[in-house]
């Protein structure tokens, strides 16, 4: 690929991304239809759920360790958060546990 072809490919990735980010504002900023206002309130919790599932999309439930490191680490994150309500503490405790599993420092007993 020539440098210009590469620049075109990168420009198209930028264009695709910005289309999805700007489109709602271009279409609805001035005059927001009732349905879009409703969707604006209704969609975010569902979007957070979608993002969470997206992060876990490659977990293999039926092979390897059956996603146990992910779900145990997620469980610790949730428990810590219900207990202390400290965002940083919850996130970092879950992440450290996951890293211990991934690096074999902490082994699952089965």
């Amino acid at each position, binding site marked *: *690929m020539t440098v210009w072809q590469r620049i*075109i*490919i*990168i420009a*198209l*990735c*930028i*264009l*695709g*991304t*910005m289309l*999805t*980010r700007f*489109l*709602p*504002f271009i279409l*609805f*900023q001035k005059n*927001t239809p*009732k*349905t*879009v206002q*409703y*969707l*604006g*309130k*209704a*969609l*975010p*919790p*569902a*979007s*957070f*759920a*979608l*993002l*969470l*599932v997206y*992060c*876990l*999309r*490659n977990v293999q439930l039926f092979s390897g360790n059956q996603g146990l490191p*992910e779900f145990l*680490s*997620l469980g610790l994150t*949730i428990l810590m*958060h219900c207990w202390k309500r400290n*965002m*940083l503490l*919850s*996130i*970092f405790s*879950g*992440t450290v546990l*996951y*890293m*211990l*599993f*991934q*690096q074999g420092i902490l082994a699952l007993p089965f």
Partner: protein
Amino acid sequence: MLHEQQKKALKAAFPHTVPILTGFLFLGFAYGIYMHSAGLSVVYTFFMASLIYGGSLELLAVGFLLGPFAPMETLFLAIMIQLRHLFYGIAMLDKFPKKGWKHFYLIFGMCDESFSINYSTKIPEGVDPGWFMFFVTLLNQIYWVLGSCLGTLLGNVLPFSTEGIDFVMTALFAVIFLDQFLKEKNHFSSLLGLGVSILSLVIFKAEHFILPAMLGILSIFLLAKPKLERQFMEAKKS
């Protein structure tokens, strides 16, 4: 240099970006190493990280750059991967400043992480929401660009293993989801999002589940609009 108001917003914004500081520096670093190993220079990394500014597409774009020149396919895939931003935009319509360069920049930099924080954080009294969201977005972008460029320049030099650190993003979204769940009176949207996304993942598999999940969520909300509209419009007013 910064006005009082801006300093206050920066101070309020920074703590919310700390998980992303960790995540983006390391994930960006990993992306940078990948760019380096693909033989692409830091100039590419800099422009891709700061102008595309969307991790999963940037990783995929490395493949586009190394393969045969396929512009239409690139554009199509870029839009498909980034489609979820449409939901974010709809949610931020009345939260972002209505005009000016901050309006433009906030939309430009609206990645998953910046959206999640800007939407879900209760901005403290006396802090200007426009500047708060601006600094959240700017800091996140700096972390990402910095991590990516360092990764490309330095290659594989970290003296310790960071394997598994990408979980910081999963944990971040889990906490944001949980916070939202604990404070909302009506769990319909949270549970619907979870149910439809998991169902779509089971049916369509990891590579293709996002679009069907988005369509499913959207159509259920539109079908249930007569029943749900009043609940959602009133719940957020109070």
